[in-house]
């Protein structure tokens, strides 16, 4: 199996994501770890609340992974996304790409997070001390 895609309301296990892609054929592993920032435009963020349309989100993440395997010589891909309430510093997303050579791993990892943010039906609400807002909902 080349691809491991999961949505979970439990804390993401970064080390096991890395372990899953390790293999003697790989020359490099690229990892992107998204973390909850404690401020947005100088406003203090109390927490983020993530929600997913799970079946479609899994399907869209699989599409991204298949496209990546077609376009770049990468060997293994992990995409794990968290749902539920996250505090600043916690990890909502982990993407790991293993490849024989580092160029493909860097490029593919960047492509996966950029595309995920555009197409995968997952939403976050930023909660401030004085209110909340669904990110990207309004122009």
């Amino acid at each position: 199996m080349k691809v491991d895609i999961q949505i979970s309301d439990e804390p993401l296990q970064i080390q096991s994501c890395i372990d899953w892609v390790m293999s003697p054929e790989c020359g490099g592993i690229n990892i992107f770890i998204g973390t909850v920032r404690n401020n947005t435009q100088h406003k203090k963020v109390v927490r983020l609340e993530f929600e997913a349309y799970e079946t479609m989100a899994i399907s869209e993440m699989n599409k991204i992974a298949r496209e990546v395997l077609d376009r770049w010589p990468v060997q293994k891909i992990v995409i794990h996304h968290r749902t539920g309430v996250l505090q600043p510093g916690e990890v909502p997303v982990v993407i790991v790409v293993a490849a024989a050579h580092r160029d493909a791993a860097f490029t593919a990892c960047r492509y996966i997070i950029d595309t995920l943010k555009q197409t995968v039906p997952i939403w976050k609400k930023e909660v401030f001390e004085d209110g909340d807002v669904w990110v990207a909902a309004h122009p």
Partner: protein
Amino acid sequence: MKILAFGIVKEIFDDSMIDIDLDNESTVEALRFVLEKKYPQLTELGSYMVAINNEYASGGDAIYTNDEVAIIPPVSGG
């Protein structure tokens, strides 16, 4: 016809699922028209997509009675 809602659309509908009167084989465009009349706040979003059976749909696509239909506001994962 049952329509699933997520994110800010859940707040606009005040529910995670609503029931809309829509003929079998209506288009996505027709659904948008009916929804925006009932929930004008939808037009204040940057944009929104309609998904049929877990796939993004275009305006001319037909919706059948047993389809799983969802309203997808601008996504913000990651």
